[in-house]
């Protein structure tokens, strides 16, 4: 079978599911962040696959570039926030950080 669009989409779907599982099931905030990166990569694979096979051409790649930019910014800010949380709580377990609730 010729490798086509569907193959890439299936890879991206599984990667997305793995990322989602990471976000939902892990306590450690850095792990949540990693799951997020996986999801972003899954999205990027979709963009580029459609750029290659779906006729989006260069626009798909541009969209992927912006996703990478956002991921970089998000990682920087998220880690800064993490450091703050760590200084405050001495841990970064997201399920225990619920002071904003009240």
């Amino acid at each position, binding site marked *: 079978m010729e490798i086509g669009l569907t193959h890439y989409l299936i890879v991206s779907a599984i990667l997305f599911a793995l990322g989602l599982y990471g976000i939902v099931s892990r306590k450690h905030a850095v792990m949540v962040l990693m799951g997020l990166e996986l999801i972003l990569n899954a999205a990027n694979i979709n963009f580029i696959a459609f750029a290659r096979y779906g006729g989006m051409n260069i626009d798909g790649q541009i969209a992927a570039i912006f996703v990478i930019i956002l991921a970089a910014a998000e990682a920087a800010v998220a880690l800064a926030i993490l450091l703050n949380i760590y200084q405050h709580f001495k841990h970064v377990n*997201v399920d225990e950080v*619920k002071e904003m*609730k009240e």
Partner: protein
Amino acid sequence: MTQEVILFLSITVLLVPILSFLINIFFGDRLGKLSGVVGTSILAFDFLIAATIAFNKLVTYADLHIIQTKFEWFSLGSFKVIVGYGIDNIAAIMLLVVTLISFLVHLFSTIYMDGDRRFPKFYAYLGLFTFSMLGIVIANNFLMMYVFWELVGISSYLLIGFWYEKNSASNAGKKAFITNRIGDLGFFIGIMILFMTYGSFMFEDVFAGIASGQMPFNNPTMLTLAGIGIFMGAMGKSAQFPLHVWLPDAMEGPTPVSALIHAATMVAAGVYLVAKVFVMFTADALSFIAIIGTLTAFISATIAITQVDFKKVLAYSTVSQLGFMIMSLGTGGYTNGFFHLVTHAWFKAALFLAAGSVIHAMHHAMHHMHDHHSDPQDINNMGGLRKTMPWTYRTFLFVTLALAGIPFTSGFLSKDGILAGTLAWANLTGGWHWIVPVMAFSAAGMTAFYMFRLTIVAFHGEPKTEIARHTHENKLPIVIPLVVLSILSIWFFYAPNPIDATGGWFHKMVVQPQSAVPAAYQWDFLLPENGGHDVIQAAGHGETAQAGGHGYLNKLQEESHHFHYIAMALSLLIAGSGILLAFLIYQYKYISADKLEARFKGLHTFSLNKWYFDELYNSTVIAFMMLVSKSLAWFDGTVVDGIVNLSAQVTRFAGYITGIFDNVVIDGFVNLVARVTEYSGGQLRKLQTGNIQSYIVFVLAGILLLLFFFIL
């Protein structure tokens, strides 16, 4: 110099002292002792400007009645208020007097007030005071006059009460202010009568209106009343009976202030005002003025005889001399009245500054001896100061001679003219009016007596106390003003003839204006005789026509000339006997002062207690005012407060009713809404776990549900 330049300079001369005020009030603390130097230099500059104005006006524009300008201040519809300022001859002379004396007082104060806690404030107030006084001088309308009149009132209040830590000083300030307010009320009523009638505050418009024959409310009596009202302002400021009580108390102020306020400026303002509006007084108003002036002159002279406080004697002598001026104006002697104002300003300022010099020296001596109980102003503590303070003594003696009216002094020239004028006036009007010259001459005699009593007791003989022995002459800034002012009291500055001032420049410059009052309501002798040309002819059949063919303006002047030598002889005789008596009693002690005192016990006590004026006012006017105030307070407390309280009660009841409605109905509804919201919120908040991951689960579950819903 053009008229515009003179006008510009006169507004400058007005505003320069306010500069001193502003600098010293805002930067005084930073300047410290320098503020005295700053104030003095500013006033020196001001004096130079004033001198320029006076010189130009009196030399170049001598024949021009007034150089003035006017402008619209504000308008309300057709109602326009025009104000302005102008320089006529008397204003030019007054500018000189005010600025020079103010400058000398500034200079004097650099030593006298040295070390005072509020030294810069003192200079600020002096600047404000000078500014206000100059405003009065250059005003050419009633409104501006009134505004600056009140400014003088407030700045004198500040200066008299300068040492407000002393109860007596703050009371004296209040007394001066309130007494002046009584006079100002009359002034205000007078202005309003004139404004209602003539629709203008400008002097020229009002005078033109009067000359046209239009009477306020078509009633000549109202014109008299307006005149008396305006004169009441003068009575307050110039301390005329019965409003004279504030001036002696005002001696509580620092002595330089006394010199400034009570010699040259504030008290002169009243006389100046009467001179400014002289042409609008009817015969009745003039009689009133004359009688008030005479009473003032006589009463204060009798009080001055027994006072033992150095400054109090001078204060009553000031009141007495102001009485002379007012009397002179009231008897139609415009020129002599104003002349006396000027000459008196010099020598009375000198007297007060000399008093300041003596008190300063006494203070120093007391300080030196660690004596804090004696009264440095009591003349019985002095004596022998002639030797310790030679320059003060010399100048004091000379200006005392001037005040007593001894030839070769300026005081002789002016007082002699006034006395001759009263004789002429009494002769022309006759009847009981003769009491005016009688009282005037006796007051003149008493003046000579009490001034020499003061001189002899304070300066001659042996020192009565150790304090007096330890006094010594003051520094130059105190001595210089004394010398300058004494020099200005020499006759030569006013007229070449030492016994007759009518030939001098002053009488040429200050010519009696023609009355604006219609002939029917004016003394006939104040009206021009048979038109302009006949004036000189009328003069021709008098014994000695004036040199240069200058004719008499009216019959009064002619008559005064007749009485000139009689008055001179009489006044010399009386003044001489007054002086002689003073020497006999106090210098040579041929007559015992104590025995005299015992003999005339009643009279002495009466005089010593100042005719019981203060007591009289306390028991009548003030008691009445207190009664009125108390009944008003009662009315306020019961009736007005009752009404207010009642309405408050009603409001409260209404508020109570609406309060119940609010509490039950509106609050109930609001609470219901709140409860519902609270309950539903309480249920919903259970969904909020605060756990981000569960949120994500919810979101995704929601998406899945939606997808299944749409797909299936």
